[in-house]
């Protein structure tokens, strides 16, 4: 499974979701999979995507929220996973693109155990892993919230368009999508 296929599977499972994508692979994959949909693509701030997603989930409890995050991203501020377990946003899915490497800096290995599902389960979070787009869509749909879905990505090909987004444009589009009244 490549990262764009993984992102597409989660999009299919949470079609009206507000997505927060971490820098690099996750942002490019979500841009490709969603046709540049109005999601919160982060161009930097490594380690802050999951915290931002909790903020979105707290503010829009009526919406499904997905943090699409790289494995290196999560490790940079792993304490935030503890906050997901402490706050327990009932509308938040954490989708971890696990490729075991730092994609945007050239693919250096993480060189740590990538036990995201095990750690999440130990924290009392619903956790699952998926190795194919079909599994990813099915588990993203059925997993309890808050939940952590680990998506095994084994295709090193860069997944989509540039991860260098224009921040004010991203913010304006996301805020419009997040504050839109359903059916309005």
């Amino acid at each position, binding site marked *: 499974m490549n990262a764009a296929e993984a992102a597409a599977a989660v999009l299919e499972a949470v079609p009206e979701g*507000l997505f*927060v994508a971490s820098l690099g692979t996750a942002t490019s994959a979500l841009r490709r999979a969603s046709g540049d949909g109005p999601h*919160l693509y*982060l*161009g*930097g*701030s*490594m*380690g*802050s*995507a*999951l*915290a*931002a*997603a*909790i*903020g*979105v*989930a*707290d*503010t*829009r409890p009526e919406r499904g929220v997905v943090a699409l995050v790289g494995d290196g991203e999560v490790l940079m*501020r792993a*304490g*935030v996973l*503890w*906050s997901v377990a402490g*706050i327990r946003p009932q509308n938040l899915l954490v989708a971890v693109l696990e490729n075991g490497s730092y994609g945007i800096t050239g693919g250096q290995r993480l060189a740590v155990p990538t036990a995201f599902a095990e750690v999440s389960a130990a924290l009392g979070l619903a956790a699952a892993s998926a190795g194919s787009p079909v599994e990813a869509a099915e588990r993203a749909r059925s997993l309890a919230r808050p939940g952590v879905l680990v998506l095994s990505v084994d295709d090193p090909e860069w997944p989509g368009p540039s991860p260098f987004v224009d*921040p*004010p444009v*991203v*913010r304006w589009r*996301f*805020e419009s999508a*997040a*504050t839109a009244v359903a059916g309005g």
Partner: protein
Amino acid sequence: MSWQTTLADALSDGVDVVAWVPDRRLSPVVDALEERVRVRILTSEEACVGYAAGVRAAGGMPAVLFQSSGLGNCLNALGSLAVPYGLAFPIALSMRGTLGEENPSQTLLGKSAAPLLHALGIQTFSVATAEAIPVLVQGALSLARGGRELATLLLEPELDRA
């Protein structure tokens, strides 16, 4: 009325949620806020800034509270998320390392807090009297909401001596 109660009253008029990292001086502020707005205690200052950026992006208005000693932990979230994305909110910094500090490990980051924020283009406003708090908080909220600028309130040690 303590300055902490005054600050809580001012923040509760315009803020939906407060994210903070524990500090002895900020605890009474959070206690007074807890019944009126959502309070989130997070594991790092950077998580507070990331969380607040998400709240703001989704249409809410957060405020962030932590010690000046933790400012260095969140420079990346400020410099590459909150500032460039225009996700602005008030930050109340409980100042360490200035007047009255007796811990040498606190002084350098205390002295550096305002210069670090200024280097990122973030304005700072010194809060040394409780009387000034309502005006400064409302100004910081307007600056964040309309001006899309982060506004930092430096909660000076003099506040405790009034």
